[in-house]
């Protein structure tokens, strides 16, 4: 078992304090970045690392940074997306709770690399402990001179604040997050312009996930190639945190190489199915990822491989369902979630998610018809690719995959009711 990287401080006592963090080699990367490296070199290393956005979209981090214009009439911003709201996902939370300085250090390096002097972290409102720990770490970093004016005597200035969200899934969507950060109602913006050009308060903005930012110090310290090499052979892209939940013996957050087969995650790391029951279905990347059948779980957990079989990597949150799982109820829970969280700005998502939720609720009540399943498929197709932001597609993922891959179970439910 290789040395953990992202999760190295998860079980270390008081790792959230500056002293313990520094003892473990913390802020060495910051010194290296600010005193020995040029911003372009940092971006090059991140490029080499193969690090892809850990929030769900999987966009190469280095590339995202390079979109930020060098000269801009407005201030540039770093916004860290810590609105971890994708059902099944709980990987950013331990980072913020146990290793908040990794986020602060990563943020400082990122800002130095991109030429930013103001960073904000938008944290899910329910994450009270994360917020406390981040604020503590930021205060410590200010006191130590890692934040504020003239960091490490290099002339580089950076301010960092914590912004607490008020509880909406849509605020995890990057432009919805920006609206919310500005104090407006969380609703996605029209794109283009993309946040890299017109973002927070109209300034060019880098938006990265907590886990992406927390990986930056390691990449700077040990090199991009080293990080890339941590991924599975032939796949690369470093390590990733996989939060596993559902009917497994050992649910939890596992740090594993990118490309680890899903089967290995479920049966080796998470200990297999609870009560040694049969596996019925797995959602591989958070609620929005299309569901997989047991025969599909040899897939390497990596963006392209999952896309190839019609699902997605998303946040890497694995939700395991055993043979006793009622998939109609499961889909009802998911559909009600999306209908509740749809922001209502664009038509297909606003109306389509609510409609799908109503149909599946009716099926669950025993009042469904076979034709309703076709209607769900057609609603999903009406949403897919036509919404303003990815929330619509996120609702389509489970809807289409559940109804098509497990159609018989839905048909049986319609005919004879719940098992």
């Amino acid at each position, binding site marked *: 078992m290789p040395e953990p990287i992202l999760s190295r401080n998860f079980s270390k006592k008081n790792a959230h304090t500056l002293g313990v963090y520094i003892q473990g080699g913390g802020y060495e990367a910051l010194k290296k970045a600010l005193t020995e490296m040029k911003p372009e070199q940092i971006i090059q290393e991140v490029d080499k690392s193969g690090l892809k956005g850990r929030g769900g979209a999987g966009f190469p981090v280095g590339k995202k940074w390079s979109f930020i214009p060098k000269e801009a009439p407005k201030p540039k911003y770093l916004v860290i997306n810590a609105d971890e709201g994708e059902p099944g996902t709980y990987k950013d939370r331990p980072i913020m709770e146990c290793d908040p300085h990794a986020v602060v250090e990563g943020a400082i390096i990122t800002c130095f690399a991109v030429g930013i002097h103001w960073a904000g972290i938008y944290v899910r409102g329910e994450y009270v402990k994360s917020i406390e720990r981040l604020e503590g770490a930021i205060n410590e970093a200010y006191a130590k001179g890692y934040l504020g004016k003239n960091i490490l005597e290099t002339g580089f200035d950076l301010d960092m604040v914590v912004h607490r969200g008020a509880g*909406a899934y*849509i605020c995890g969507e990057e432009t919805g997050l920006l609206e919310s950060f500005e104090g407006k*109602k969380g609703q996605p913006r*029209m794109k283009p312009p993309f946040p890299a050009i017109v973002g927070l308060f109209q300034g060019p903005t880098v938006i990265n996930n907590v886990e992406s930012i927390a990986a930056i110090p390691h990449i700077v310290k040990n090199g991009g190639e080293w990080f890339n090499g941590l991924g599975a052979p032939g796949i690369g892209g470093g390590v990733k945190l996989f939060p596993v939940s559902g009917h497994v013996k050992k649910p939890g957050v596992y740090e594993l190489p990118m490309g680890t087969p899903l089967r290995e995650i479920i049966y080796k790391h998470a200990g297999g199915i609870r009560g040694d029951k049969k596996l019925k279905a797995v959602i591989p990347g958070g609620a929005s990822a299309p569901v997989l059948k047991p025969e599909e779980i040899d897939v390497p957990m990596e963006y392209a491989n999952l896309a190839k079989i019609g699902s997605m990597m998303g946040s890497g949150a694995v939700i395991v369902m055993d043979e006793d799982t009622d998939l109609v109820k499961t889909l009802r829970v998911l559909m009600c979630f999306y*209908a*509740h*969280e*749809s*922001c*209502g*700005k*664009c*038509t*297909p998502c*606003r*109306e*389509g*998610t*609510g*409609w799908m939720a*109503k*149909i599946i609720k*009716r099926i669950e009540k025993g009042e469904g018809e076979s034709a*309703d399943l076709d*209607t769900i498929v057609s609603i999903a*197709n*009406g949403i897919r*690719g*036509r*919404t*303003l932001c990815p929330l619509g597609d996120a609702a389509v993922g489970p809807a289409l995959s559940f109804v098509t891959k497990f159609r018989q179970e839905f048909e049986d439910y319609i005919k004879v009711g719940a098992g």
Partner: protein
Amino acid sequence: MPTLTIDDQQVTVDQGTTILEAAKKLGIAIPHFCYHPRLTKVDACRMCLVEVKDAPKLVTSCSNAVRDNMVVFTGTPKVEEARKSILEFILINHPLDCPICDKAGECTLQDYYFRYSSQPSRFKDNKVEKHKVVDLGAKMVLDSERCVVCGRCVRFCREVVGEENLGIFNRGDHSEIGTYPGKKIEHNYQGNLVDVCPVGALTAKDFRFKCRSWLLCKADTICPGCSNGCNAVVHFTLRSFNGIKGQRVFRLTPRENNDVNKIWLCDVGRWGYSFVDSIDRLTTPALKKGEDFVKGDWDTALRETASGLKTVVERYGPSAVGVIPSPHLTNEDLYALKCLFSCVLKVANIDFKLPGLDKGEGDKLLLKADRHPNTRGAELLGLSGTGLSAEAMMEKVKTGEIRALYLAGSDPVKYIGEKAEEALSRAELLIFQGTNFSASCKLAHVILPGATFVEKEGTFTNYQGRLQKINKALEPLGEALADWEIFTRLGKRLGAYPSYRCAEEVFKDMAREVAPFNGLSYQKIGPQGIKIADSSQ
């Protein structure tokens, strides 16, 4: 400048033009709800999706700028399917109450449904219930269930009026328009919210349940509410309906003119039309007999007027006559008036400038403090400064030096008050020519009923010096006549006067005689008007 192909037609447009706008240039209409040419784009309704060659997904044409060599298709099966789907989504929670909806017949959603969908509903569940008959302000009502959440109204208030009072509340299919807590919409541009609403969610209290839109005829006009001269359309009917007997004009809506009113109309102007069909309209000539008015015919009234004026001029000279025209009258009316009094009767005391004429409350957007549509026209025609001022005339009427006073649409009592009342009551001959009964009219010896702005053809010159045309939509009520025609008929009785048969003939003379109008004709004015002078000082 990028050149692109839309539905096999090539078009070259400015950099930054959107696909929707480029298509419009080719005459290709792309359906949309949230897009409005004068508001920011939000990309929300998804109705304007089109297919772009080599793009993986359909793209919103309202927000995506064209690129050189782009190939766009607006009518492929994929696009048609998307439109059907979006319409189905919008309609699942829509109450489908077109039969009782005021917007029916002019509703974007209704039109699109028939044009692009026409499919039966597959929705079997309960619709979301939302607020109905929401009183958003004094002038309009919201039905949230009909709303398509395009947000145009919210953006209009924010971006055009500059007020933050409307918002979209709740999420998902429970999203609803509403005012912020404790706020009502009080601005002077509420009618535009009804106009920008593509469906029947916002309806005007003034128009609700009064008339089906398809029963209304339309004519281009100019709002007579102030000197801004907003381009408008008057909606009227010739039939009569239960409950609203006698109402012919039902509303005014804005007409686009970038140089004047963009595409907006203020509420003061929009809802100022009611005088046209109001109960105090003057519909027959009348003569004072003792304390009362007795209905008369034109022949008698004009004879009385002509002989009265003639007698005063012959006995006391033209300086014993005063004329106060109103800048509500058209250029044609005013020119005909000038010919009669200035040329035929040699009267110098002509002044339209009653004190306080321009002292209304204006705003920054459209409404001007001067609530008269043709003040600039009256200035250009020289209807002030040739003799005594209107105020001085009042004094002279009081002292008896002016014996005959002719009020052409003007109401001195309204502006000067008691002093004017006292003066007018002492006049030997007081002629009132106008559309509605008024405090000044009450004191007249002869009443000559005039036509309103929708009952005659003519032109107004707005505060910018822009000459714009109004059209005759309706016959004058009762026996009323266009003011130029009254002057023509009077002129015949008083001396050598041209026998004008229509306003255009008056205009032709004016175009020959009055400098700023030289060389102009009705054709040359065009639907957007033409600038003939600078703004007044």
